[in-house]
């Protein structure tokens, strides 16, 4: 019996299972649901449950959802707000996270463990709780807002004086909380990438006449691009579809796309519309990613002269 298991483990069947499992997972939990959503997006809204159906007459599928995407500028604006908020948050995460990741690779091993722990520590409290904490901080009567208000009043002419900094219910608040929430998703892949770089290469560049900042530009930065892209995707993709943060701290008059999808599903009970928005969002996210993977694969295969 043991022999047969060992034999199987060395065989092709074993490899097939190992390779097949993730595909099965993707099929069950990504591809099939995706097909369902795609199917729903071509339906039309019905007042009865389930809240969508297919028209009896030709054409029996409907493009109403997709058509409305381009007609009603609510959707277009929601996409733009989402993409710009997500992009801003990604850039800020990168600017904050890169030096932190680099520092993590340069400190002693014991410090590194403590600092890494501090990066992950916020995950130990509920995400919602942390958003509520920010709401408290940004609110008109908080010490944080008071401090900022005092600082502002001190630095500007008396005629510009304000009673509090209007932070809540703005894109600023959304970006701030998203940067706070997603920063570890930037730091961890970047750190994993930077940590693998050989410090001897830095010495070699210095030896050949480069000052430390030049070494960073020539040696560290180009080699960390895969880490930057991985981190940027981990931040940008969930940030673009974010629902909770914009709902709690965002500007209700210019919703983000996640909010639009949720509203269409629940209050408007227009499933086909919600599905259309979701599909377009998915295409917007997956397209660049596939392009990147394609070029990455080509670059790794290497160019022959």
């Amino acid at each position, binding site marked *: 019996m043991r022999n047969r298991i060992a034999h199987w483990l060395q065989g092709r069947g074993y490899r097939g299972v190992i390779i097949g499992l993730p595909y099965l997972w993707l099929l069950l939990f990504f591809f099939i649901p995706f097909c369902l959503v795609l199917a729903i997006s071509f339906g039309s809204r019905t007042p009865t449950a389930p809240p969508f159906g297919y028209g009896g007459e030709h054409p029996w599928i409907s493009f109403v959802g997709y058509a409305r995407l381009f007609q009603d500028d609510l959707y277009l604006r929601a996409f733009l707000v989402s993409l710009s908020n997500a992009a801003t948050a990604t850039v800020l995460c990168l600017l904050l996270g890169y030096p932190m990741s680099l520092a993590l690779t340069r400190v002693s091993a014991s410090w590194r463990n403590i600092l890494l722990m501090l990066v992950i520590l916020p995950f130990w409290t509920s995400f919602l709780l942390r958003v509520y904490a920010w709401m408290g901080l940004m609110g008109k009567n908080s010490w944080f807002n008071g401090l900022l208000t005092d600082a502002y009043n001190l630095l500007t002419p008396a005629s510009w004086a304000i009673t509090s900094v209007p932070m809540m219910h703005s894109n600023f608040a959304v970006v701030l909380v998203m940067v706070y929430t997603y920063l570890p998703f930037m730091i961890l892949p970047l750190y994993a990438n930077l940590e693998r770089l*050989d410090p*001897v*290469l830095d*010495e*070699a*560049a*210095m*030896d*050949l*006449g*480069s*000052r430390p900042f030049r070494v960073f530009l*020539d*040696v560290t930065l*180009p*080699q960390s691009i895969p880490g930057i892209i991985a981190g940027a995707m981990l931040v940008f993709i969930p940030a673009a579809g974010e629902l909770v943060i914009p709902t709690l701290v965002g500007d209700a008059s210019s919703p983000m796309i996640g909010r639009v999808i949720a509203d269409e599903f629940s209050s408007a009970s227009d499933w086909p519309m919600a599905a259309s928005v979701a599909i377009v969002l998915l295409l917007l996210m997956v397209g660049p990613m596939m392009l990147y993977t394609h070029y990455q694969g080509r670059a790794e295969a*290497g*160019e*022959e*002269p």
Partner: protein
Amino acid sequence: MADPFIRIDNVSKKFGTFQAVQDVSLTVAQGEIFSLLGGSGCGKTTLLRMLAGFEEPSAGSIFIDGQDMAGVPPWQRPVHMMFQSYALFPHMSVEKNVGYGLKHEDMTAATRKARVAEMLELVQLTPFGHRKPHQISGGQRQRVALARALARQPKLLLLDEPLAALDKKLREHTQFELMSIQERTGVTFIVVTHDQEEAMTLSDRIAVMDKGRVKQVGAPTEVYEYPNSKFVAGFIGSITAFPSKVSAVVGDVATVQVAAFQGEVQARSVPGLSVGQEVTLAVRPEKLVISQARPEGANVIAGQVKDLAYFGKDSLYRITLPSGELISVHSVNAGRSSGGRPDWDDQVYLSFAPSAAILLVE
């Protein structure tokens, strides 16, 4: 006397409580290939890193071409290094790697390109300019590293175990190539190595290091034939050493009593020897003559063959002395037949010239 090209003055380096380099003073002439030879942890790499500017000496100073290097950062030193791992930039082509240092030179793009082409030709890698480092072999990578380090025409090239990562055949070939490139460019080389053969063939002079100190400096023949300590004698080549006692010194010949030989032998004297002094007598295996008939003259020891290893061109014997101690003898198989060569358990006589024996005080 003219100031030497490179002068290392009483340099020490401490890491915490660990003394990596201890009061080292050396001079290297322009155009020389100078080796720092020693086992791991002897301080040779630390000394090299101090020359490159990656470490500052805790005490002492380093002068390169008359310029004090104290406080001069690596990027401003007229020194380039070939790293043991080669440290090629993986995201740059061979050409870009070689041209990297030239970015800091004030030259036109065309001149830079010509210089890169010239360097690639020097190391015979012209067809590989567009490849990335991972697309070429280990030997080619080594040559890229050399070309990159030489491109800016450094005054001094530091080579950290330049041949360690190559296999044996390639190593021999590369050794001669390194020497010919050094000859053509005239750049001063300082080589760090733990391989005594590598040091012997490459270098004009060798500094043997142990525990942070320089034990002996000299030409390869000098450190081999006239080692000044048991450490150097044992580190370079093989040697058999016996404790002995000086019984007479006449001119440059000393007579010493060797317990293992149960008799007296004559050896070339060293300065400052006095009668009654405890010294070490050391003999290299190839300086001993093995014969079955007792030869005439002094310095003859009787023994019995315990082991013999036949390598073809030569044989290695292990001879048991009357005292029970063992001595190695290396003998070239000049004749073709095996007749007349000592065999297992044969009674043999070993002899050596007084000048072949080394007396070591330290």
